[in-house]
């Protein structure tokens, strides 16, 4: 579904991503873990077209993404939930969702309403808060809104950048449950997480990113057993073991 080959990217002279290759198959949950500054957000930004790659290939369902402007990519079914939620603060919850449905607007108000109902079913709290300004939502609610807004475009691949940051354990559990439900409904998820244990717990496969390079990759079970991964990203588990 998503295929990345020998990708290099950075900001001006600063090279952040070095020779990255990875792929995501339909119906998978794939997670990318890595320390602060490893380049995870940069990688997603390049896929979403917000940042131009220096070298390499990115294809989504066989289409070259690098040659497309960022605003065309959601139309193909590849959508990103950005780091830090980035909701439209001065607008209501429902307006945020309708904006998320921008690319399906041409299919008529029936489709749009159906998608709205789906999001409200997925996150009932958003239905209660539909008329409230997004900027006044709690952090957890904003994260749910950011996810729901992305889902409004009826994507086949959802890329999430650290959806659990700053949230209470119970809310995180809820969000991870939603990710699992998305996979059951046939969607593909590329999940970036600091919370490596939880992410590997639901993912099929994982990549470990360190200073812009993929250093380890494989099925989640293997990564959970891997000594280097345990030492660097599952620190506490190792002491317990």
């Amino acid at each position, binding site marked *: 579904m998503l295929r990345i080959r020998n990708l290099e990217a950075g900001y001006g002279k600063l090279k952040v991503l070095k020779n990255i290759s990875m792929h995501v198959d339909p119906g998978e949950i794939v997670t990318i873990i890595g320390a602060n500054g490893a380049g995870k957000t940069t990688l997603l930004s390049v896929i979403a*077209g917000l940042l131009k790659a220096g070298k390499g290939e990115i294809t989504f369902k066989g289409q070259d993404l690098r040659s497309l402007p960022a605003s065309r990519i959601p139309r193909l079914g590849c959508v990103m939930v950005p780091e830090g939620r980035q909701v439209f603060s001065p*607008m209501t919850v429902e307006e945020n969702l309708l904006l998320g449905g921008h690319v399906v607007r041409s299919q008529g108000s029936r489709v749009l309403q159906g998608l709205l109902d789906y999001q409200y079913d997925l996150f009932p709290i958003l239905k209660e808060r539909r008329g409230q300004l997004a900027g006044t939502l709690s952090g957890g609610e904003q994260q749910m809104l950011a996810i729901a807004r992305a889902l409004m475009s009826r994507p086949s691949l959802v890329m999430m950048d650290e959806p659990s940051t700053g949230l209470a354990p119970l809310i995180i559990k809820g969000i991870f449950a939603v990710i699992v439900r998305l996979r059951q409904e046939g969607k593909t998820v590329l999940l970036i997480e600091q919370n490596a244990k939880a992410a590997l717990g639901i993912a099929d496969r994982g990549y470990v990113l360190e200073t812009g390079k993929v250093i380890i990759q494989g099925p989640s079970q293997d990564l959970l057993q891997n000594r280097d991964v345990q030492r660097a990203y599952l620190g506490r588990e190792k002491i317990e073991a």
Partner: protein
Amino acid sequence: MTIELFIQYLFAGITYGSIYAIVAIGFNIIYNTTGIINFAQGEFVMLGGMISISLLDFMPLACAIILAVAITMVIGAFIEIVFIRWLAAPSVLRMIIITIGISILIREAALYIWGEGVRSLPYFTGSAITAVGIFGARISPQVLWVVGACGLTVLALSFFFKATPVGREMRACAANRKAAILCGINTGNMVTFSFVLSAGIGALAGCMMSPITYTQYDSGTALAIKGFTVAILGGLGNVGGAVAAGLLLGVVEAFSVSVVPLAFQDVISIAILLIILFIRPNGLFASKEAAGLRAF
């Protein structure tokens, strides 16, 4: 001051004030979607007036105004596409210089096309001496046209921004550009559209005011200063604030005539601008979101 004189001044103030408000809203629309202050905003007003005056030789007044507004909108789109769109991440200073350059370009073109002469549209109803009595004061019907048109423009704009998908997308673009792109919104088109919209409402104001204030190739400059003052006073990007501040400035100016000589009228708005910049740089009605001015 007699009650008649008071009402006379008040209406003069509201008339000019609503024009200032419209020019300020033009600034705000472009500022909100791009962060740019378009110093050519006053030129859109002048173009609306000038083009409609020229068209009047060939068609009835209403058609001339509509066509003039449409032509100015096309010019607005053209300006954005030619001068603004291709700039990747321009600095504020560069944008200021570019838009001032555009305003000079338009003014010189207007001087070349229409000459230095002062022109005007005819009064929409009646003539220069027709007046309606309101509480004993004599008010030109054109004043009612100006106030009515400006009021309707503001209502239409708020409907547009609140209730239409494109209006919502423009607000999204203003609220969070990156998120708007991630929703698949073509923010470049939204920017072009904001220029078209600003040009259109500016041109409409230019037509409405032409019978009262006359139109000359350089009449946009003074208006841009007033409009800019009002935009700052109301808080950059704040449309409701622009209406309130526009009316306030118009009324203050009108009443100032009874205190200081007419020639000093413009000094008042410059003085207000400077004072505001010193003591309340976010405007009188500033909200936290509107604090973008600090970036200058």
